[in-house]
């Protein structure tokens, strides 16, 4: 495997290269070339990832740690006890993520060429998009928590840049967009705090951050047997001469397994100590905080719906298919920890299930086509989180993959709709009132509001049919991809409740089934509002189907949404030519404690019946026309008005945060700024204490000391010198004879002094 795994740096490098090319040369290239560079980079990364995937079986599915050339010596942090190499891990889990990211990413890149056509910052968009891919690949391939964190932050940055991409739109929309970007960034900081704490605690506990050391086998029972490690096997699976590290030097998971098996380990934190199990629970709880930030779970999901301000390809790529699934990836990667911390797993389950239900409920009451999908994404992420919380790592990853297909499809479809409605609007506008041209309208037309649509099925057949496939896949209709993955999650919850007797299993099962019903309902409502009925505006009347660049990815994703379920057909269902549980068996090689699942016929039937019933109810409710005569939702005309209003107001979640957190925070910062900083620190402290003290000290030094003592002393000295000089100048008469006489006298004195000893002798004698 090592030969093929050493390709992994290329997977990361190529998107970055594409990004750099467009960054520096983008202004000289036309749109076609920019798009080719960006999509080509994504496509090549996908081909490489696929190559490694196909190489995997030949090497026994063994995960490999790769030291990227050059980088490992550049980005190396040696310290006393800290040793963090820049290593990448290629195993079945990271390959799954790589395939999803680059595969769906490539399709969305192609789509974006059509969608972003004519944008003033076309090149910059693809710079960001490729940059995102690179960071996402760092996130999924990193072999230690810190490298993962680098990717985690990098994708957060790209998300920020892309949400606020249209920061200069008119009518205050640009402001809204950049506010949404800031919101996403700041809310994610809260989650990142959790991730960072988890990293610190992990390092403190295990002394390393590496998931696995080179040559280490995954811990825990794989296929129910204990893995014995032969020295030869270690050396052969070693990549870049790190063979000095023996197998006793294990990564965090190996160490955790060993210590837990020994039992009774205590971790010391200065003044207090905790058992290893408790520490693992704390680490995983902090990790969950990070997950709720990045994967948009309660309580930090509020940023994702606003993030729809970004261009639609961004919503599809970052905020549906890839970045937001980073949390699920993180939990799956750290499955050993979560397995050892049942409390955290329960919290994960409940967070996921509650999020799934609440987001599903809110989605029912939204008018914005992308907002519905955004809440749907939050809800589906809740499904995945609940699944991994119940130990269904394969189920969570399965849903992650299928969701990437159909949610990317739905977002791209909605982008296609928005694009078309915008065109239709311009078209209708140009043919309507010519006097309006040249100046902006009073009330801006919202091409994302579903009330402005209707009857688009006939105008945009490809978009409609692919959207319908995506909708049915999301609603979980057999035999589309969503059915299998959602059913596996429900099956996990069922098993967790009835077989393992976990209370959170029962709760999750109940919440998720209701959430699934909501899913089917709001998706069918959307189909009715957008595609069926009659066009409600001139814009919808004139909406054209989009070009092949935009419809081709839709078709590919629709095919994937239909066939995606074949990835993981549960045991007990026989489909010719397709083996069962491909994904579960694949992931077992890198995720310990992954178990397959028997097909639960009763549960599948129940879930399908509920989904179909929800679609039926929605269809009856929203036909023939989805709106009442006054332009309100049909639900508002029924007895459920209050619930609709609640969903429409997003449960007042943002307002609650404003009331509880933001307003007190603003008040506190205002108080700190005005009272503490300005009044007290500036006016009082600076003026009274520092300035006045300084002035007084300076005054003392200037007047008594400098002018009084020092100046006076030197003036006196000067006066004295002048007085003496005045006296002495009288000696200089200017007459030569005076000087000659002085010389004579001097000479006489000298002669006298010379003769003095002789005189003395004469006198003495």
């Amino acid at each position, binding site marked *: 495997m090592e030969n093929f795994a050493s390709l992994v740096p290329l997977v990361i490098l190529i998107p970055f290269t594409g990004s750099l090319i467009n960054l520096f040369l983008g202004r000289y290239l036309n749109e076609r070339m920019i798009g080719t560079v960006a999509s080509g980079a994504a496509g090549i990364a996908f081909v490489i990832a696929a190559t490694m995937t196909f190489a995997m079986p030949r090497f026994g599915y063994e995960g490999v740690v790769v030291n990227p050339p050059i980088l490992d010596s550049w980005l190396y942090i040696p310290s006393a006890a800290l040793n963090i190499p820049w290593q990448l891990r290629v195993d079945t889990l990271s390959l799954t993520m790589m395939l999803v990211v680059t595969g769906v990413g490539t399709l969305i890149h192609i789509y974006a060429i059509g969608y972003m056509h004519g944008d003033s910052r076309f090149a910059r968009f693809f710079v960001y998009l490729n940059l995102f891919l690179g960071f996402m690949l760092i996130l999924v391939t990193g072999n230690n928590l810190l490298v993962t964190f680098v990717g985690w932050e990098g994708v957060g940055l790209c998300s920020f840049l892309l949400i606020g991409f249209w920061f200069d739109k008119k009518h205050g929309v640009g402001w809204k967009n950049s506010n949404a970007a800031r919101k996403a960034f700041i809310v994610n900081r809260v989650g990142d705090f959790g991730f960072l704490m988890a990293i610190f605690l992990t390092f403190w506990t295990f002394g390393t951050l590496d998931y696995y050391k080179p040559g280490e086998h995954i811990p825990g029972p794989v296929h129910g047997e204990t893995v014995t490690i032969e020295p030869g096997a270690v050396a052969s699976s070693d990549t870049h001469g790190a063979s000095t590290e023996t197998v006793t030097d294990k990564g965090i998971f190996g160490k955790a397994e060993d210590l837990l098996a020994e039992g009774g380990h205590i971790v010391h934190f200065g003044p207090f100590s905790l058992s290893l199990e408790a520490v693992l629970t704390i680490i995983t709880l902090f990790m969950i905080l990070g997950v709720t930030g990045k994967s948009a779970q309660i309580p930090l999901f509020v940023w994702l719906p606003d993030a729809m301000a970004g261009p639609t390809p961004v919503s599809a790529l970052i905020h549906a298919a890839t970045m937001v699934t980073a949390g699920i990836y993180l939990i799956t990667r750290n499955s050993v920890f979560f397995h050892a911390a049942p409390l955290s797993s329960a919290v994960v389950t409940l967070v996921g299930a509650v999020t799934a239900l609440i987001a599903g409920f809110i989605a029912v009451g939204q008018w914005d086509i992308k907002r519905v999908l955004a809440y749907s994404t939050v809800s589906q992420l809740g499904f995945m989180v609940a699944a991994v919380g119940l130990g269904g790592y394969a189920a969570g990853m399965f849903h992650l993959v299928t969701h990437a297909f159909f949610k990317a499809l739905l977002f791209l479809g909605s982008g296609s709709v928005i694009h078309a409605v915008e065109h239709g609007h311009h078209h209708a506008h140009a043919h309507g009132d010519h006097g309006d041209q040249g100046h902006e309208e009073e009330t801006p037309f919202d091409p994302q509001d579903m009330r402005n649509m209707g009857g688009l099925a006939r105008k945009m057949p490809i978009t409609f049919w692919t959207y319908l496939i995506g909708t049915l896949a999301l609603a979980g209709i057999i035999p589309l991809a969503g059915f299998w993955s959602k059913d596996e999650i429900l099956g996990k919850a069922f098993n967790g409740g009835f077989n393992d007797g976990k209370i959170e299993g029962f709760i999750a099962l109940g919440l998720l089934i209701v959430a699934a019903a909501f899913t089917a309902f709001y998706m069918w409502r959307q189909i009715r509002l957008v595609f069926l009925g009659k066009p409600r505006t001139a814009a919808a009347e004139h909406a054209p189907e989009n070009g092949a660049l935009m419809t081709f990815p839709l078709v590919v994703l629709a095919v994937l949404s239909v066939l995606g379920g074949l990835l993981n057909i549960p045991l007990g269902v026989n489909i010719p030519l397709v083996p069962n549980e491909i994904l579960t068996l694949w992931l077992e090689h890198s995720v310990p404690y992954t178990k397959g699942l028997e097909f639960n016929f009763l549960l599948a039937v129940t879930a399908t019946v509920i989904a179909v019933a929800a679609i039926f109810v929605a269809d009856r409710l929203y036909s023939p026309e989805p709106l009442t005569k006054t332009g309100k939702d049909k639900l508002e005309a029924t007895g459920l008005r209050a619930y609709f209003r609640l969903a429409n107001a997003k449960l007042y979640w943002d307002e609650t945060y404003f009331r509880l957190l933001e307003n007190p925070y603003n008040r506190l910062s205002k108080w700190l700024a005005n009272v503490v900083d300005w009044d007290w620190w500036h006016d009082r402290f600076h003026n009274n204490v520092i300035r006045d003290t300084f002035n007084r000290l300076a005054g003392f030094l200037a007047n008594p000391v400098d002018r009084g003592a020092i100046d006076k002393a030197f003036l006196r000295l000067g006066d004295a010198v002048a007085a003496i000089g005045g006296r*002495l*100048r*009288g*000696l*200089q*008469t*200017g*007459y*030569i*004879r005076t000087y*000659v*006489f002085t010389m*004579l006298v001097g000479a006489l004195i000298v002669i006298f002094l010379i003769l003095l000893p002789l005189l003395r002798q004469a006198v003495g004698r």
Partner: protein
Amino acid sequence: MQPPTVPVENFIILSAVLFIMGILGVLVRRNAIMIFMSVELMLNASNLALVAFARQWGDMGGQMTVFFVISIAAAEVAVGLALIVAIFKTKKTIDIDELNTLKG
């Protein structure tokens, strides 16, 4: 028959008289030429003393020194007269009492 020898004291007295005359000339005369001549007188007074002692002790060093003094005096005369000419050209006088620019 040996010529009568003049005792050295006579020479010394003559030398001293000449020297004092020179000093007085330098001190009292105002004409620069006269002061100059007085200086020459002092030089030759010392020359006389040197040769007298040379003869007394039979040491040719004294006589040699005199040659040096005479030659240097010649140089000094050249420089001194040039100075006096220069002074006269600027001041139109060689009265040294007029040359009191250095008066403090």
